[in-house]
């Protein structure tokens, strides 16, 4: 343990039990499925070095046997591969040497093979801004060629009250439900040949230069290779996006946290933590599955249903006619019970959760207040409505679930995670490495695509200003723009999650009236729709 304390927190969850590893030394050892991190500034890897960090940092960062790349993308998930495609397509950035390191194996699954295979249980809702980015990358057409589930209507309601809200007119797609592996495969196929992609490349450690110095990040791979990068882009591994087999363990969460306590007297710099994450565990797990719905003759499956239950929201997302994806956020114990049930009981549990009118607290005074409040909201809404405005939404019931696709049930834990800083000296975080959100709003992947677009623009502007690649001002610009957007979304989603996790009557009343107001007053609803579509 040195006086300069580097603390990293790593959370590994294996089959229900929680293990926390907190390490106080400069370089912490690798555990089985995790990556280690160090800020070793001397070639001596001993953790007892207490020298001032003013000593030359060139010995570690100028390894002669290290390959040098302009940009290294560590982690090839949706954000990582989207970043690679975006770099390859940009006129300004396409001449850079780029390397993508993906820990998962190379799969030969072509898009044609994926379209014939059964639906995967991990899906994302791709919003219109992300569709525009994917279209610009030339990937969206490929994805549509495989399969997407357009969401043309969305209904959200509460189990504790009669309040509900509906979006969409049934014609224009609000979002598209796409399987994660289809998105990743389509992005992989479009990565230009000038960009090198290495599969099965697990990073043993990252050696990052201290702030305001001129060193370059050094990556050490498990197979012993060394790579230096002028700019390191960190995304999350595609392994996390793979489908999880029923009953198997949950994923492990990586929290890439570093606190640097420097020798502040000698360096005269502040000792703010380099990388802290704001994180909270929700105490919930998400159960995913692919459901077979009753096929209705004249109606296509274009509606997304979300019901807020006391334990968490239950969402049914359309995939194709008669098939939908389930994302049920609930308590971990209930999640395990759901996984253990047989298919019939599972389908019955979903139907009863969706169709039941039971309330945790019901009081006549509460219900009459709600009715009056809803009526008031409708009256106010009429003030804003015109002849062409949509009528007050009518409440529909979702089609019954008739079966579950075999081997599609799985669960994973949920957490909120947000890096306090997205950038450091020559390193930048995109996608899930920077933020993880609750799935109740389906925005996780969209925020990642937004990061990719913003980082590409920031790099282009920076290079055209003649700055060096990975200059601090360029990365700071990216961080400023993205945090402004992401924090708003994160705060809103977290607030919604907390608001709907309670059954206390005052909160139920508040949220019922709020939901009714947003549904009835057209300008507010239009603003929300416009924000999502921007």
């Amino acid at each position: 343990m040195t006086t300069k304390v580097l603390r990293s927190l790593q959370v590994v969850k294996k089959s229900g039990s929680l293990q926390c590893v907190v390490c106080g030394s400069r370089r912490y050892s690798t555990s089985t499925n995790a990556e280690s991190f160090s800020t070793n500034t001397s070639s001596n890897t001993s953790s007892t070095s207490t020298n001032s960090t003013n000593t030359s940092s060139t010995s570690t960062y100028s390894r002669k046997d290290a390959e040098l790349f302009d940009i290294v993308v560590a982690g090839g998930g949706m954000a990582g591969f989207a970043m690679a495609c975006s770099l390859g397509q940009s006129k300004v950035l396409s001449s850079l040497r780029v390397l993508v390191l993906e820990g998962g194996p190379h799969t030969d699954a072509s898009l044609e093979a994926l379209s014939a295979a059964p639906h995967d249980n991990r899906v994302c809702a791709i919003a219109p801004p992300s569709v525009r980015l994917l279209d610009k990358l030339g990937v969206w057409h490929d994805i549509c060629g495989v399969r997407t589930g357009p969401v043309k209507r969305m209904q959200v309601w509460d189990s504790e009250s009669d309040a509900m809200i509906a979006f969409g007119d049934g014609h224009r797609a609000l979002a598209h439900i796409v399987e994660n592996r289809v998105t990743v495969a389509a992005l992989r196929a479009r990565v230009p040949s000038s960009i090198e992609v290495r599969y099965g490349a697990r990073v043993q450690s990252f050696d990052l230069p201290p702030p305001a110095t001129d060193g370059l990040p050094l990556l050490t791979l498990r197979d012993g290779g060394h790579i230096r990068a002028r700019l390191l882009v960190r995304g999350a591994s595609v392994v996390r996006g793979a489908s999880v087999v029923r009953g198997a363990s949950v994923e492990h969460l990586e929290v890439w946290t570093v606190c640097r306590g420097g020798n502040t007297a000698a360096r005269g710099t502040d000792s703010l933590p380099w990388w802290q994450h704001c994180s909270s565990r929700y105490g919930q797990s998400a159960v995913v599955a692919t459901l077979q719905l009753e096929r209705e003759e004249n109606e296509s499956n274009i509606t997304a249903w979300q019901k807020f239950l006391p334990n968490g929201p239950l969402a049914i997302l359309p995939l194709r006619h008669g098939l939908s994806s389930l994302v049920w956020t609930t308590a971990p114990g209930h999640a395990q019970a759901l996984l253990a049930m047989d298919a019939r009981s599972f389908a019955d549990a979903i139907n009863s959760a969706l169709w039941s009118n039971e309330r945790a607290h019901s009081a006549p005074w509460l219900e009459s207040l709600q009715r009056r409040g809803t009526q008031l909201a409708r009256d106010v809404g009429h003030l804003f409505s015109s002849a062409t405005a949509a009528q007050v939404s009518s409440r529909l019931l979702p089609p019954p679930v008739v079966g579950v696709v075999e081997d599609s049930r799985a669960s994973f834990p949920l957490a909120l995670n947000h890096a306090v800083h997205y950038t450091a000296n020559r390193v930048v975080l995109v996608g899930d490495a920077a933020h993880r959100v609750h799935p109740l709003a389906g925005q996780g992947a969209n925020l990642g695509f937004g990061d990719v677009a913003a980082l590409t623009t920031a790099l282009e502007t920076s290079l055209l200003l003649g700055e060096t690649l990975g200059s601090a001002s360029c990365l700071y610009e990216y961080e400023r723009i993205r945090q402004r957007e992401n924090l708003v979304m994160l705060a809103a989603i977290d607030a919604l999650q907390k608001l709907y996790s309670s059954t206390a009557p005052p909160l139920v009343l508040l949220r019922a009236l709020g939901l009714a107001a947003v549904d009835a007053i057209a300008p507010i609803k239009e603003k929300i729709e416009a924000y999502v579509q921007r």
Partner: protein
Amino acid sequence: MPQNYCTVREINIKTETYQNTRHKQQSSFNDEEVRKFGALSDHWWARDGPYKPLHSLNRLRVPLVRDGLISTGATVSKDGRQPLEGVTILDVGCGGGILSEPLARLGASVTGLDASHKSIEAAQQHSSLDADLQGRLQYKCCDLDTFSQRLDQQYDAVVASEVLEHVDSIEAFIESCNACLKPSGSLFLTTINRTPLSFLGAIVAAEYLLRIVPVGTHTWDKFVPIEALKKLLEERGLQTRLQHGMLYAPVLDRWCWVADTSVNYALHAVNIADTSVNYALHAVNYAPESPMSPESPTSSLS
């Protein structure tokens, strides 16, 4: 060039003072000013040092030079990353090379010129850290008058950014710059206007109140009124193509383009002395368009 501009009597009384200085000194080189910058040479590249506003000014002046040269056709490079390939630029009063380095990275062949040994040393030391600059960037420690008399080549562009307000004789300076310029070459100037507002902004606020620059960096008498400068340029065969004001936000450390040229302003002039076409002196509207830069100012000649 038709001589239908104002005579000396009609020029504003403030500029008359500045016009008379040319009779006192014939050189554009001022020993005192050079020593002032030499003393701070360690701090050229310090992130939060006294030259921080010059670093953030790159956000405006690099697109100014880049897009100005693209629009005048000085470069025909199709390279997305190096739009100034094949262009030669002289950066007068380059200091630590804050502007020279980005221009060299964009593909230009840049010669940085400064009269201060210490500044040139700092510039050379910093540029040696970046392998991309080798062969594209060279520095010379020399004053402009001597340099212009011993030229071995003329340049596509001469850039004098934040220099004019430190020289004694603007006329000698412009003459020397013009001598270094190829026919149809571009001259880029950024400096401070001499107005009551600039006294309040650039001296009182910047030096005493907000401490953005050290006290004594600027002298109000040496500020350059924009109209007088444009007339001087016209006399030398340099037609002003673009002028625009610039504004600094101290807390955010950001510069932005503004229409008002009362304090800081930028100017792009083109050497047209060799052409036989008779150019009118009044405004030619010219909007530099660059698909690559959202930051290009639209020009307006008043």
